[in-house]
C-alpha cells in the first residue's frame, strides 16, 4: 500500500519535474498560448472573432449581392429582410427557399394631378392620402406560392480575391456562397438605394478592421519611437519627451482626432487616401500610454549586461533599441496592441458617426452606424440596425479575446490559481 502510493507519488513528482522543465524552458509565446487555451470565454470569443474576420476578409464570396451601387436592386428599394425557410404549409424542402417579394410600385398618378386642374388642392389631397409618406413606400407583398430556392456556390458578379497592383497580380472569381434562382436575396433587407444591407455589412467589417490595423501599426511605431528613444537615452531627452507625453495624455483624444479630420476634409483626397490618413492620425496621436510603459521597461533593461555587450561590440543606438531592447518586450507589445483593437474601432466609428471619417459610398461600420441617427430609418427601416448588432458583437468578441490575452500574458497570473 505504502509502496504503491510512493510509486505513484514518485511518478507524479517525475511528471511535474518534466512539466516544470517544459514550463521553465518554454518561450514567452508558448506560455501565453498555453494559458490562453485554458480560458473558455476567450476561446469562444476568439472563434467568433475568427469567423467574423474570415467573413469580412472574403466578404465578396460570402455576400450574395454586390454591395455597391451596381448591385442595387432597383425594384426592391427600402425592402424588408427576406426570410429563409425549410418548410411551410406547402411542404418541406431540403433545399432552403425564400418567397418572392414584390415591392408595390407607387401608383402616384401625376398625370391625374395635372388633369384635375392641378393646383394646391389636388396636391394636398395627394399628400393627405398617404401615398407619399415613408411607411406606404415600405409596403411589399409576399407571394408565398412562388418559392425561390437558394443555390450554393452560385455564379454571380465578378470580384477580385487578391489584388496587388504593384506586382500586377489580380486573381478574380465570380462564385458566391449563396444565391437564389431569380433576382437577388436580401437577407437583411435593402436601404433606400436598394443596396443589400447584409452584403454591405460584411464588406464594412474588413474596411473597419483594416483601418484599425493600420492605426495600430502606426501607433506601435510612434510609441516605440517615443518610448524607445526616451528610455534609452534617459536624462534630458527623457524629461522633454515625457513632459510632452504627459501633456498629450491629459488632452481628450476625440476632439483632437476631430480637428485633424476637419483639416483632412479640406485637402482634396480620394476616399482611399482619406481612409489611410484617418487611420494614421488615430494611430499617431495615441502613443502616450504604450510609450510610457515602453520607456519604463527600457529604463530598467538598458543597464543589463546584454545591452552593454551589444554596445561594446559596436552596435548603433538604433540597433540596440530595435534588435535588443524592444524584442525583450515583444509579447507585451503584441498583447497590448490586440487589447487596443476595440478602442481604435470605436474611435473610427465616432469620427464616421460625426460625418468626418469615411463617408457614404464607402462601406465602413461607422458609416453604416451613422444611418441609425436618421429618424426615417429608426421608424421605417429597423433592419438597417443589423450593422449595429454586428458592430457590438465584433467589439465584444475583441474585448473578450483581449481580456483573456491580458490574463494569459500576465506572468503573475499563475499565482492566482
Amino acid at each position: 500500500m505504502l509502496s504503491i502510493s510512493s510509486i505513484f507519488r514518485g511518478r507524479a513528482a517525475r511528471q511535474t519535474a518534466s512539466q516544470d522543465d517544459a514550463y521553465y524552458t518554454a518561450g514567452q509565446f508558448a506560455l501565453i498560448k498555453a494559458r490562453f487555451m485554458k480560458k473558455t470565454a476567450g476561446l469562444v470569443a476568439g472563434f467568433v472573432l475568427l469567423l467574423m474576420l474570415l467573413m469580412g476578409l472574403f466578404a465578396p464570396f460570402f455576400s450574395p449581392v454586390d454591395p455597391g451601387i451596381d448591385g442595387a436592386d432597383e425594384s426592391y428599394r427600402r425592402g424588408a429582410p427576406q426570410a429563409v425557410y425549410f418548410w411551410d404549409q406547402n411542404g418541406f424542402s431540403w433545399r432552403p427557399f425564400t418567397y418572392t417579394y414584390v415591392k408595390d410600385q407607387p401608383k402616384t398618378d401625376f398625370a391625374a394631378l395635372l388633369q384635375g386642374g392641378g393646383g394646391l388642392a389636388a396636391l394636398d389631397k395627394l399628400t393627405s392620402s398617404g401615398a407619399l409618406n415613408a411607411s406606404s413606400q415600405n409596403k411589399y407583398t409576399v407571394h408565398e406560392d412562388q418559392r425561390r430556392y437558394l443555390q450554393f456556390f452560385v455564379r454571380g458578379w465578378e470580384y477580385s480575391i487578391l489584388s496587388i497592383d504593384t506586382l500586377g497580380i489580380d486573381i478574380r472569381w465570380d462564385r458566391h456562397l449563396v444565391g437564389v434562382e431569380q433576382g437577388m436575396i436580401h437577407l437583411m433587407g435593402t436601404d433606400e438605394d436598394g443596396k443589400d444591407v447584409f452584403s454591405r455589412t460584411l464588406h464594412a467589417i474588413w474596411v473597419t478592421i483594416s483601418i484599425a490595423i493600420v492605426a495600430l501599426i502606426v501607433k506601435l511605431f510612434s510609441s516605440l519611437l517615443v518610448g524607445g528613444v526616451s528610455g534609452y537615452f534617459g536624462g534630458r531627452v527623457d524629461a522633454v519627451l515625457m513632459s510632452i507625453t504627459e501633456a498629450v495624455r491629459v488632452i481628450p483624444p476625440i476632439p483632437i482626432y476631430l480637428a485633424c479630420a476637419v483639416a483632412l476634409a479640406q485637402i482634396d483626397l480620394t476616399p482611399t487616401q482619406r481612409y489611410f490618413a484617418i487611420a494614421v492620425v488615430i494611430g499617431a496621436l495615441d502613443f502616450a500610454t504604450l510609450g510610457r510603459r515602453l520607456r519604463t521597461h527600457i529604463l530598467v533593461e538598458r543597464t543589463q549586461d546584454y545591452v552593454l555587450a551589444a554596445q561594446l561590440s559596436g552596435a548603433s543606438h538604433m540597433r540596440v533599441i530595435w534588435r535588443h531592447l524592444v524584442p525583450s518586450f515583444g509579447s507585451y507589445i503584441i498583447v497590448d496592441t490586440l487589447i487596443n483593437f476595440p478602442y481604435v474601432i470605436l474611435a473610427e466609428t465616432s469620427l464616421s458617426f460625426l460625418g468626418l471619417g469615411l463617408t457614404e459610398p464607402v462601406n465602413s461600420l461607422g458609416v453604416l452606424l451613422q444611418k441609425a441617427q436618421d429618424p426615417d430609418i429608426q421608424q421605417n427601416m429597423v433592419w438597417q440596425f443589423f450593422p449595429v448588432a454586428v458592430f457590438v458583437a465584433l467589439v465584444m468578441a475583441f474585448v473578450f479575446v483581449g481580456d483573456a490575452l491580458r490574463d494569459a500574458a500576465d506572468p503573475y497570473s499563475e499565482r492566482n490559481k
Partner: protein
Amino acid sequence: MINFFSETWLLWLLLLTGGSLFWASRNSQYFHYVFNRFLMALVALLSVSIIVFSLMEVLPGDCAEKWIAYKSTQGEMITQADIDAERARMGLDQPLPVRWGEWVTGLTLKGDLGFSCSKRQSVNLALGDRFWLSFMFCIAGLVLAYVIAVPFGILSAYVLNKPWVDHNPQHGSLKRLLNTLGLGLAKISDVMLRIVSYLGLALPNFLLALTIILLYVFAGEPTPTGLFSDEWRSEPWFNESGFQWGKLNDFLGHIWLPIFVIGWAATALQLQTVRALVVDESSKLYVDAARARGVDGLSLWAKYPVRHSISPLFNSVGFDFQRVFNDLPIVALVIGLTDAAALLIEALAMTNDQELAAAILFLVALVVISMNFITDIVLAAVDPRVRKSVMGG
C-alpha cells in the same frame, strides 16, 4: 492701482501660492514635494497650451477671413487688401509663437481665454456657465460610475475563485446553506454585472443615447433631449411664489440621460479596473500572511487588499475625468445639449473657431492636471507607502 491688480490677478494668485509653498518647503519635506508637484503642474499646463494652440492651427481659415466673409454677406465689396488689413488689425499676421505668447500672457495674467471669432465675443463670455455644466455632467457621471463600480468590482474580485457551493465541513448545515445562497447571489450578480460592463465597453455612447431616445419615440413619450422641456425653458428659477420646484423636476427629468449614458461606459471600464486591482492585491503575500494570522472573511478583505487598491483608484480620478469628457461631445450632439462639449464640437467641426476650441480643450486639461495634483498631494499626505516612495522615508 486697483485697475493694475484686476488686470493681473491670476498671476499674483499663482505667485502667492508658489511663494507660500516654497516658504513652507524650506523646512518640511512634504511641502517640498508639494512645491515640486506645483511646478510640474505649471510646466505641464504650459506644454498643454503649446500643443493645443498649435494643433488648432490645422483648422482651416482664420478670424479675419471669417469676419470679412460675414461682412461680404452684408453686401460690402471685399478685396484681398481688406483681408490683409483686418488680419494685421487682429494680429493674425504675427508668427505662431508670438500669437501663442500673447494668448498665454493674457491667460496667466487675468485668466483671459482669448477671443472667439464665431461668437464675436471673448471666450470667457461665450463659455459662461457652459463649462461648469459640462464639468458637473462629467463629475456626476464619474460619481455614478464609482458608486456602482467600486462595490461590485470588489465583489467580483471576491467571488473570482470561489465555488458556487460552500463545502466547508467546519460550517454547520444551516450556515453552509446560507453561505451557498449568498455565494450564488454574489456570483449571479457578478456575472450579470460583467455582461453589462462588457456591453458598456462594446456599445458606443452615442448608440446607447440613440437607443434610449428611440425607446421614447416608440413609446410615444416626449424625448428627454436638451436640458429643459419647452414649457420650462424660458421660466426663471425663482418667481414671486419662490423657488420653482417644477423647473427643478423638469431639469432632473432631462439631466439623467446624459449622466446615465456617459456614466455607463465609465462604469464598465471602472468595474474592470477595480476588479483587476483588487485581484492583483489579493494574491500578494501580505494577504496570505494576514490569513495565516487568522484574519478572515470581510475584515480580511476590507483591511488588506481593498484598502490597498483604493489609492491607485483615487490616483486615476483625473484621467477618468478626461476619458468621460472625451465621450461627452458626441453624446451632447445626439442628445442636443448646449454645454461646453457641444460648443467644442461646434467650434471644431462647424465654425472652425480656433481659440474657442483651444480654450475648451485647455480647460479640460486644466481640470485633469489639477485633479492629478490634488490626488498626488492628498495621497502623499494620507498613504504612508506613497509618502515613503516620494520623499525617501
